[in-house]
């Protein structure tokens, strides 16, 4: 099955996307954010909350920031305090939480000793991350990778214990990936909630404690079913990099992570998101966490046929940003979706063209294919039929990560039986149409081939324009998802700052070198 794409166009599209992101990366390199700094504290072992329930990473970063010390980076202040007080970073943070002292007020210690402390903390942290990553990689190797498309389902009860019950049932039915959906609007919180949670709306809070509980449950199931089970959460919103770090620490396998989703769909400040996504991505690259980009969202608010090229353009941009963060293609879950109105004549042919375009444009990536949602209705039977065709397109076009459609998509977050029905549908279709993609070809210059070319050409025109005006200006022009966001508006803008000359962040420097250097 081939689209017969003009490879010169493909190359051109990629070059344009590179040029577009090169420009943005210059801005990124000059800046850090509150959440980037909080991420550093987490990697140095700071966790927990103060008596007001404020997470200690926030406490510490806020302390330094309010004393105008953050432009130097949080690392120095922590290390300096550790040396001065002979405490661990966590003890330091707890003391700050109890308002015993401010980090900025501690007398600067001898530079070489502080430097040594920093090296020691950094070393320790990186060893820890590597250990976790290696454990995961070897577990994956031992248990074996399931066949693609991986069957990906969500749990979203709001209660981590109910999530566990349902996730286990899903795994025993055949799920390969469990995503714990976050509670509504967590992306807008400028902190990561702490501890186990049993209440959430439309999902369960992403907390490190919840990550741990689910990871254990899935590992238990994995050895039971003899299949590696991946765990997914969201690194989106105001805490992108922190969540990546938490995920790395708890051995998650995937994160929803898009370079522009927060800007467009959460009205988060552009610069904040661009800087945050960079950090969160090299953490993912470092820890072998697959990212899932969010282009499916564009065609929830704009027309999936007319605006198909915006998906393609954004995929290429996401790819370039990921490459800049040292990510290997196999960890790029490039997002796209089956969202065309089921009443469109030949809708299935459009879907095949679009899905295969993603597959062929990113041959070494692991595309993440999303199910019908916006045209799902209360007719659960029709929904089941829509999902059947979605499953068919996925297996035909060789997708990698396959989020299952739920027959009750228009009604509620999935019931335990909805997930069962979805899994059995996917298993049926994947097996029944296994070799179909290999057995068919498209007519030369037929409907499907032409449609794919049309989308690619439009994506190129769009990227040309974006290159000309710049990515940020084009977001103002609402090129993606029909949504306009202004450069300096949006949530979390005050959390972005330009790094001072003495800004020092050795753990991230080291991770960046490692992911980019030896291509680990």
């Amino acid at each position, binding site marked *: 099955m081939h689209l017969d794409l003009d490879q010169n166009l493909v190359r051109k599209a990629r070059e344009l996307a590179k040029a577009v992101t090169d420009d943005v990366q210059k801005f990124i390199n000059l800046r850090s954010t509150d959440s980037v700094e909080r991420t550093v504290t987490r990697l140095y072992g700071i966790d927990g909350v103060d008596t007001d329930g404020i997470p200690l990473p926030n406490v510490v970063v806020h302390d330094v920031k309010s004393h105008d010390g953050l432009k130097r980076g949080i690392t120095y202040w922590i290390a300096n305090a550790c040396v001065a007080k002979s405490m661990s970073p966590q003890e330091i943070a707890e003391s700050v939480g109890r308002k015993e002292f401010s980090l900025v007020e501690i007398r600067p210690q001898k530079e070489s000793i502080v430097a040594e402390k920093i090296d020691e903390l950094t070393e320790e942290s990186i060893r820890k991350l590597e250990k976790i990553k290696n454990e995961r990689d070897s577990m994956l190797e031992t248990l074996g990778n399931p066949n693609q498309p991986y069957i990906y389902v969500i749990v979203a*009860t709001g209660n981590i214990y*109910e999530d566990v*019950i349902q996730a286990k049932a899903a795994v025993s039915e055949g799920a390969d990936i469990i995503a714990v959906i976050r509670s509504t609007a967590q992306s807008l919180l400028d902190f990561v909630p702490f501890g186990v949670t049993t209440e959430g709306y439309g999902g369960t809070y992403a907390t490190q404690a919840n990550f741990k509980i689910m990871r254990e449950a899935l590992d238990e199931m994995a050895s039971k079913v003899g299949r590696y089970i991946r765990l997914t959460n969201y690194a989106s919103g105001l805490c992108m990099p922190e969540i990546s770090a938490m995920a790395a620490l708890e051995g998650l396998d995937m994160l929803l992570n898009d370079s522009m989703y927060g800007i467009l769909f959460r009205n988060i400040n552009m610069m904040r998101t661009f800087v945050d996504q960079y950090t969160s991505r090299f953490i993912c690259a470092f820890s072998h966490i697959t990212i899932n980009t969010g282009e499916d969202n564009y065609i929830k608010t704009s027309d999936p046929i007319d605006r198909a090229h915006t998906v393609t353009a954004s995929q290429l941009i996401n790819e370039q940003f990921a490459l800049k963060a040292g990510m290997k293609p196999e960890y790029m879950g490039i997002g796209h979706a089956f969202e065309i109105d089921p009443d469109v004549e030949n809708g299935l042919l459009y879907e095949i063209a679009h899905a295969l375009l993603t597959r062929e444009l990113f041959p070494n990536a692991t595309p993440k294919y999303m199910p019908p949602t916006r045209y799902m209705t*209360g*007719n*659960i039977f029709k929904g089941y039929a829509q999902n059947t065709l979605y499953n068919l397109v996925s297996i035909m076009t060789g997708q990698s990560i396959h989020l299952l459609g739920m027959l009750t998509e228009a*009604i509620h977050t999935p019931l335990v*039986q909805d997930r069962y029905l979805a899994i059995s549908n996917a298993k049926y279709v994947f097996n029944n149409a296994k070799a179909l993609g290999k057995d068919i070809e498209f007519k030369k210059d037929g409907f499907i081939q032409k449609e794919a070319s049309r989308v690619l050409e439009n994506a190129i025109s769009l990227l040309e324009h974006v290159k000309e005006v710049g990515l940020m200006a084009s977001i103002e022009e609402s090129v993606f998802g029909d949504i306009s966001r202004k450069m300096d508006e949006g949530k979390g803008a005050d959390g972005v700052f330009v790094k001072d000359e003495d800004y020092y962040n050795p753990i991230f420097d080291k991770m960046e070198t490692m992911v980019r250097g030896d291509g680990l």
Partner: protein
Amino acid sequence: MIPNLDLKNIKPYGDQTNDGVIQLSFTLPIPAGAKAREAARMLVESMGFSDIQIVLTEDIGEDFTFFVIYAKTNKYVDYTSIKTFEVEITKMGIEEINDKISKYLKRQVVIVGATIGSDAHTIGLDSILNMKGYHGDSGLERYKAFKVYNLGSQVPPLELVRKAREYKADVILVSQIVTQREIHIKQLTDLVDILDAEKLRDKVLLIVGGPRITHELAVELGYDAGFGAGTMPSDVAAYITDRILKRSS
């Protein structure tokens, strides 16, 4: 099982323990619209449901309206008190059965099978009787212990009884697939009546099967046992062996 589940109050589980969520669908013979929706809501409410979400109200022509509904039931069941009424089977292998029968009965068990009355569905009965069996489980013909006469389909009850007498059957196996307007009840009752009239009922083990047959229904109609959807031939073989040996001893 879910930790700390209250077995005396089992409710459906949708999204949360004991939320009682049930999906329903049905058609009312009234035109679609607010009034139809209210009728559907009232109907469902009268069954003891709350949180009634009518997620589909569809005009399906000629003043029929189709509904899909999710709602929460206020009913529950006491799991600890449930008594099930089912055929008791102690699994036995082919050899074990052959040995037992030859040891204790000292002859083959004679089995006569048929789908009776107007029913032409033979596949179910054949799955039980034919060598080939069902889903890899061999049929009764494969057992040395059994002598099987498969009379096929649409056999009038009278004819079946005649053949059973002729072959000196120990066991009669009847299949009933078509159940529309309770035709199976009529045909099954006919058969029992004839066996009674011919004073043969006590001399045979009388078994009925089919996708809508339950053991409970079978016993109610005067049969020794009933086998439903997905029955395995080996289960039937084990049951027959057990009962025939008990009778003969």
